[in-house]
């Protein structure tokens, strides 16, 4: 049972991480990176590290996403249909 849950979480996490690298939309990439942090914090709970899980959720999923989103707005990439020309 535990194995199944962990397997699903790990696959989800790795897939989301890949999504960060390949999605053409920057907002989606930031959201995905925040989702990665969220899954990681769930894994921290399973590893019996509640302190770390709280920090990862607050800092990694919340604050860091906020910082990145503010950056995106300033960079003018805050558009849902933005296909970046710069990325290969």
């Amino acid at each position: 049972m535990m194995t199944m849950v962990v397997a699903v979480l790990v696959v989800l996490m790795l897939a989301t991480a890949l999504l960060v690298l390949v999605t053409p939309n920057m907002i989606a990439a930031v959201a995905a990176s925040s989702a990665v942090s969220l899954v990681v914090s769930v894994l921290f709970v399973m590893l019996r590290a509640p302190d770390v899980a709280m920090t990862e959720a607050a800092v990694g999923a919340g604050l860091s996403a906020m910082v990145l989103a503010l950056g995106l707005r300033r960079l003018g990439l805050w558009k849902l249909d933005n296909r970046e020309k710069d990325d290969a």
Partner: protein
Amino acid sequence: MNQLPVEYLFFVGAIGLVGIGVAGMLLCRNLFRVLLALVIAEAGANLLLVLTGYRWDAVAPIVLPGMPAGTTMVDPVPQALVLTAIVIGVGIQAFAVAVLIKIYHGYGSLDRRRLAAMLDRDMNELAGVGPGRSPEAPAGKRPFPPPEQQEGRS
């Protein structure tokens, strides 16, 4: 006690994150995405660090009232290290975003290769030397012919 696959899974997850992150840092062309990749790689390294202190038969390292003495707990040290590493990471990340904003203002692009070429040009301009390895601005005499021809710009 057949718990082997679970421990593999945690490791695969952590190392996979590091791998994806590092690959992204080396391969992505958009600098903002490179920054995201760095964040992912850091998360992977943190996960690996927490894994080093894990025990199956243990509880979280917090003494609760009524807990029998001698209860095994997981190692608190790596957890403390990771707390530190996470906060360090977000500080550097905020600074990086600010620099990225300035770069975009200055160069109007976030493409890594284009930026590298422009940085090269800027440095040459700053130093007052011509673009590329041109033969007409050498220091003293050069015994060898220039190894590469001038790039597109005159």
